[in-house]
């Protein structure tokens, strides 16, 4: 099997070095860049399977670099940043970031996020059946089974689950989910979102109070694991 290629764009040499060691010992190949300019050149010359991007780069804002990359690069981009205001994170996610980690983070967490990000976009099978843990989504019959038991979902609950499933491993912002499910003009109706996520959790999670599938990112959105 080919080792996935990861590009690290971060201006801190220590972070680059430690990430390189952690990733290489876990069967990834690593490319490194310390500026936005170098990052974009590296990404163009050797298109990586995923990019780890620091938002605070010396020559250009990471937000702008993210937009430039997103013009042509459609694989996962995970933000790793030391400034962790919710606004920054939401902005990066809305600009196409797949996920984010705030420094300091544990290597285990990074590897888990990276694995699920690399699965992103590959979950919808041609058969129309998507499997997430013990859940099975059938997009042709529009049904959901948990451990082979048919679940009774309302149409909105189903649509919500499908949206999450299509974006497994990606953090979806509240705004994005509201727009996708209820349409433009409903972006501030977060109370509906809370209610439906709560209802959906009660149906698909073993313990809705300690959800394992629909994970809350406080003040930002949700992710499906």
């Amino acid at each position, binding site marked *: 099997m080919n080792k996935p290629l990861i590009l690290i764009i971060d201006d801190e040499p220590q972070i680059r070095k430690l990430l390189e060691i952690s990733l290489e010992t876990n069967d990834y190949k690593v490319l490194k860049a310390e500026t936005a300019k170098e990052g974009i050149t590296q990404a163009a010359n050797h298109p990586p399977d995923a990019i780890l991007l620091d938002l605070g780069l010396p020559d250009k804002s990471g937000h702008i670099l993210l937009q430039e990359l997103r013009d042509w690069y459609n694989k996962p981009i995970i933000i790793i940043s030391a400034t962790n205001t919710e606004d920054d994170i939401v902005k990066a996610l809305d600009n196409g970031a797949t996920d984010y980690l705030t420094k300091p983070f544990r290597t285990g967490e990074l590897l888990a996020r990276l694995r699920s990000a690399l699965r992103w976009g590959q979950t919808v099978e041609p058969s129309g059946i998507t499997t997430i843990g013990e859940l099975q989504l059938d997009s042709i019959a529009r049904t959901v089974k948990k451990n082979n038991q048919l679940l009774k979902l309302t149409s909105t609950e189903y649509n919500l689950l499908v949206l999450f499933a299509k974006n497994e491993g990606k953090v979806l912002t*509240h705004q994005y989910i509201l727009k996708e499910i209820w349409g433009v003009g409903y972006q501030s109706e977060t*109370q509906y979102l809370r*209610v439906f996520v*709560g209802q959906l959790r009660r149906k698909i999670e073993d313990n809705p109070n300690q959800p394992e599938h629909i994970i809350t990112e*406080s*003040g930002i959105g949700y992710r499906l694991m």
Partner: protein
Amino acid sequence: MIAAALCFFAQSFLGYRAVALLLLLLVSMLAIVFDILPVLVSALLSAVIWNFLFIPPVLTFHIASPEDALLFLMYFVIALVNAVLTSRIRKAEKKAIEQDEKEHTIQLYNTLLNSLSHELRTPIATIISAIDALKDNRNKLTENTRVDLLNEIDIASMRLTAQVENLLNMSRLQSGFLKLKLDWCDVNELVFHAIQKVYLNTTQQSVQFAPDEQFPLYKLDAGLIEQVLLNILSNAIQYTPDDTIITIKAVSTPTHLVITISDTGHGFPNTELTNVFDTFYRLPNSKTGGTGLGLSIAKGYVEAHGGSIALHNNPTQGATFTILLPCEYSSINSITHE
């Protein structure tokens, strides 16, 4: 102006000279409230009004008798002196207050430095000496010792992270730029999220919460309130015995969300109940590992919501924190027809 109108009526039975004293009183009172410039203007204006409306011949700026002219001049000078003196006194007062504040800030700063140098240097010292041990004695260390040293580095780094997080939260609060991000929030989810985070740092105590599925949604800043719960929980966990039970309850009213966190620990000394929320305050003889910031941040975040936080000892054992948050609520908690 209004005063002048009132004086105009008073004039009929007081005489226009008494009116001057009334106006003077008014100018002095203004000087207590306002800055030098508006007071000077009002002194000038009132002198002119007095002249125009009251000194015969009325409704002209002309002054008939030399006695009145002298009176007018004196009125003007007294009003000015009054204004200048009052403003000088206030300037001196302001300076004294500033001096006090400065001293208070210096004192806080010193406490911060002491607390910081201890709470930041201790984990750094641990990390450095553990690394030295690992590097210098590579061949002499047993596998067990190596694992021990690595664990020490791990614990110290997590402690350092928590302290830095506290300091960042505190500076966020004190910068005065804290902007609430109010959004509908599932309180059950919020509480469970906080409990989960606390359990990540292995704890001996048990945290209990019985969720009510029909609990309404409340509009609040979920990130900040989660931090409030985390800080109170961490505090409880750090300072209570291992077999303590910590119970979280949420009560909903149409105007307020009430969250209580009680423990079965030793409680607080009664004399210290109100001090625990003070910045950098730590109970006398409390064990190391805190900066005295956690509860003060919790209080700040609750107050940013317009709410209040109180601490009292339970009648039997332990203590209870009560958080009262005034906030909008939504009773929509199930939509099954869509």
